[in-house]
């Protein structure tokens, strides 16, 4: 199939797109939260793949090869975008504030979340991640969000396993400190409100 597509066979290429687009979409969803952005990135991935089919020698799996192109494409798109400045409590929406409050209340008890609350949490996560580098976002989403092994992250990024571990350690610390800051400010705001009453 790859051989036929390389020779310009559009049907063979269409089959590649049909077969691997769900995987590419899932992977691009780690980087973007808007459907249009995910679709744009996925399209770019397949156009790049078509032009680079000559370099695909068929040694590894087509899926792995496409995942690597997806990672590089999405990281490049994110790198070219301007990173958001630090997130502060005043930037949070009311829903996000409520979510943080409820998390503080029952952080120890694993209460099942409603769908709406999951969306709020995903929004908040995205907003915190947007303040971090694309590389940090990738390792955190894969390792901490999806329980992906370090080896898999190393395979899709082309980094060494030790680099992935160091990157994950630093990213985890940044994320924890950012959330700690938000939680701390929330608590002090609540105290101020109580004393004002």
């Amino acid at each position, binding site marked *: 199939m790859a051989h036929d597509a390389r020779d310009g066979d559009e049907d063979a290429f269409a089959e590649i797109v049909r077969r691997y687009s769900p995987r590419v979409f899932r992977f691009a969803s780690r980087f973007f939260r808007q459907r249009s952005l995910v679709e744009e990135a996925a399209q770019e991935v397949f156009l790049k793949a078509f032009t680079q089919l000559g370099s695909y020698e068929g040694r590894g799996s087509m899926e792995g090869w496409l995942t690597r192109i997806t990672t590089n494409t999405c990281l490049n798109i994110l790198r070219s975008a301007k990173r958001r400045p630090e997130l502060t409590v005043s930037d949070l929406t009311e829903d996000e504030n409520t979510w943080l409050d409820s998390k*503080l209340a029952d*952080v120890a008890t694993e209460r099942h979340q409603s769908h709406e609350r999951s969306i709020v949490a995903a929004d908040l996560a995205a907003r915190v991640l947007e303040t971090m580098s694309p590389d940090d976002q990738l390792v955190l989403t894969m390792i901490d969000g999806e329980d992906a092994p370090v080896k898999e992250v190393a395979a899709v990024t082309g980094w060494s396993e030790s680099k992935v571990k160091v990157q994950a350690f630093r990213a985890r610390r940044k994320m924890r400190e950012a959330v700690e800051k938000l939680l701390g400010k929330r608590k002090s705001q609540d105290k101020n409100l109580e004393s004002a009453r």
Partner: protein
Amino acid sequence: MKDEHITNMLDNTPLALLGESELAAIRAHAGACPECRRAFEAAQVSGLLLRERAAETFEPSPFFQTRVLAALRERRAATETSALRRLWQATGALVSSMAVTVAALAFLTFISPSHQPPTVQQQLASATDSYSAEAVIFDQDNVPAGQMSYGQVLTTLYDDNTGR
């Protein structure tokens, strides 16, 4: 363990991957250390946030394949057009440079004054400027007033000799 801060442990491994004994040690320390308790709470919230974020995925629309193929054709057409345009521009540049060269050569050959054949007047003028034998002979009659021609000089000399 109880006296050691736990932040490195929190940052080293995702909380979900920590064993029961490690979590127990973390909880024990967090109970006594407010700073680490805050860090632990933040790590728990971070983990939850990241899980919620990772759970969001999109599936391709039914038209995605068509869209990619259309974009591919468009890109190919654009590449071919730009290649033709480049070829046309290169040809245009070559033809125009050749035309300029031909025009320059024609100018140098036929129009430039330095390469015009000399006129009759110019030839005569250059002839009078020189001191050729012909000029001396032909110009004997055009001697300015007050000067002797070569003929008169010779006659005077010969007359003097014969008079002796």
